């Protein structure tokens, strides 16, 4: 069997295990019935309550064995039915909540990635073109600093200066504001500080990789050839050296999408963005089992899929492998750290 297929099957297996563990844990550690019905769930002596309990058990299949309940859930899940939220008020479907929250997180992550890449590229080019000179050394130290600052601290610092002190950027995120636009009442602008907080560490990590790859590329013959054609220094860097140096960075970028979901948890809390990160925190506190499960599954699936794609993404930018055997993933050999 070709390796990409084998890996895909492996991923599906892993996802299944994740779902089983989460499903089991939430059932053993919590009490689903209590989460659904509240105190009524314990009131088994009252016949009226008992009736409600029996109904709820039947509706949520709580009277079935755990494996059977998992199987039912899994079957619904793959068909896109995530069940209903545990709530006494009307029980809206989990998918409604996800549809509302997920796009906000994706927006935040997109802004963060764009900020990270647009910082990393000129930063790496600058460092690589002055490799091992002072600019490069300072930029290495800066990169380490950015990688090691916890995002919470970063959030506080950025928020304090750009929003509180200088009032350059909005301090609140309003989910109902339009996205496109450049005033404080547009989400694009409201997402800059959160996006920066989420993206700055990635920018530094990308810079480490891209700088190393650029330095290697700059020693190639074709760079000398480009110079001898009278291509300006700037053009040599951006049109000749950059593209063949992007492989490792793109791979890391894809892998990083998964990690960013984790990071968005903190950022969403701090900047009060009602995204999927906040949703999972709220749902966990409420012990809203179907919501937590759905989010865990979506995040894990996203994480794994991007990890999987990361190994094949480089085929997009390298014409040499486009028509060839893509079953040999190119691994990142060093982080340049």
């Amino acid at each position: 069997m070709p390796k990409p297929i084998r890996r895909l099957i492996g991923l599906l297996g892993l996802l299944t295990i994740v779902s089983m563990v989460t499903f089991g844990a939430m059932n053993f550690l919590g009490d689903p019935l209590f989460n659904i019905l509240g105190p009524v769930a314990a009131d088994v002596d009252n016949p009226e309550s008992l009736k409600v309990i029996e109904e709820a058990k039947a509706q949520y299949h709580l009277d079935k064995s755990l494996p059977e309940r998992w199987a039912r859930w899994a079957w619904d899940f793959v068909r896109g039915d995530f069940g209903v939220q545990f709530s006494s008020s009307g029980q809206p479907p989990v998918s409604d909540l996800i549809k509302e929250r997920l796009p906000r997180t994706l927006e935040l992550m997109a802004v963060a990635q764009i900020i990270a890449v647009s910082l990393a590229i000129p930063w790496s080019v600058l460092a690589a073109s002055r490799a091992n000179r002072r600019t490069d050394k300072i930029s290495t130290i800066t990169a380490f600093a950015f990688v090691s600052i916890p995002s919470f601290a970063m959030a506080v610092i950025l928020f304090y200066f750009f929003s509180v002190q200088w009032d350059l950027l909005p301090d609140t995120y309003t989910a109902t504001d339009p996205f496109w636009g450049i005033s404080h009442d547009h989400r694009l602008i409201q997402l800059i500080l959160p996006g920066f907080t989420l993206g700055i560490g990635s920018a530094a990590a990308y810079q480490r990789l891209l700088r190393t790859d650029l330095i290697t590329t700059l020693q190639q013959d074709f760079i000398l050839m480009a110079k001898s054609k009278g291509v300006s220094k700037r053009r040599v860097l951006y049109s000749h050296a950059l593209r063949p140096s992007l492989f490792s960075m793109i791979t890391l970028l894809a892998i990083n999408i998964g990690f960013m979901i984790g990071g968005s948890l903190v950022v969403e809390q701090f900047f009060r963005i009602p995204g999927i990160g906040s949703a999972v925190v709220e749902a966990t506190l409420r012990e809203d089992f179907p919501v937590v499960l759905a989010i865990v599954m979506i995040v894990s699936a996203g994480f794994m899929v991007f990890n999987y794609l990361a190994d094949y993404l480089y085929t997009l930018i390298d014409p040499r492998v486009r028509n060839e055997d893509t079953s040999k993933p190119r691994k990142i050999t060093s982080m340049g750290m």
Partner: protein
Amino acid sequence: MLHETDSANNILELSDYRVGFRTERGLAKAVDGVSLSLKRGSTLAIVGESGSGKTVLNRGIMGLLGANIIEGGSAKFQGEELVNTNRQKLWGTKMAMIFQDPMTSLNPVMKVGNQVSEPLRLHQGMSRKEARDRTVELFTLVGIPEPAKRFGEYPHQLSGGMRQRVMISIALAIEPDILIADEPTTSLDVTVQKYILDLLVDVQSKSNMSMVIITHDLGVARGRADEIMVMYGGRIMEKAPSETVFQEMKHPYTQALLSSIPRLNDPKHTRLTPIEGFPPDIVDGPQGCKFAARCKYAQDTCLTLAPEETTIDKHTYFCHFPVGTDAGSEALKSNEDKGFTAAGLRIKSKGEVV
């Protein structure tokens, strides 16, 4: 001394040109005092073993060696001093270079057509379309079949010979006054080598540009270059019009090179060390003649005293005991009788190295 008219006619004039690299052991004198002049429209072949300084000499002239070098002497291009100046304005306009390995010297992720169009658009102000048309024209000229289709292909889709033709197209696009071809065929199959070399000579003679062909193969130079310069250890050993080198070579190193010519129809040759022994250390080299340790003619004088320049007509050489002279024959004979040279090299009576 050169006459005024000669100077005006020379595109390149080197005088005691030197290039050194700073290394941990000291200054590596890769080019150690080279003087030559190249006439407009003529071809010079620089021949020598691996490590003799051919590449450094030419990249030095072009100013492509970066900042960590020490340059000395004089190198004038069209009358203008190059040494220790920034030569960027000459790149892509007046000077062009063809590298040895067309696989590594073409950008792997850029369409070959765009690599040829680039200098046209940057320096000749052509529009995208004009540059494209000109590129296709050049591809046709250098014998690339289906030129319009090739324009959009990447280097890895072309054979070695085709890639080198692309390189030649780039050089031609630039329409340089001087073209430096650094071992343009070493990495190619034997069958394409001759074609590429003849193509180079053909376009050179049509366009009246001057050309320097670097090779470690005297056979490549024969019939293609007006003048041949033999280099060793960063220095000129012998320099003469092409046929003179073959008919009346004076330097023992040239003789040794000649007797080890790999022919074009030999199996694919890469880098050979045709002569017993190794090139001299360029950081801490021999005091006398650089070739003494490997020379069958070497006498005591050679070990202590670097030979002076001898120039007869257009034939220049640096040797105390030149081949074919009485002094040379005597030196060789006495070494053969002893069985070893002044440098301790053991030789057989027939002159073969043991």
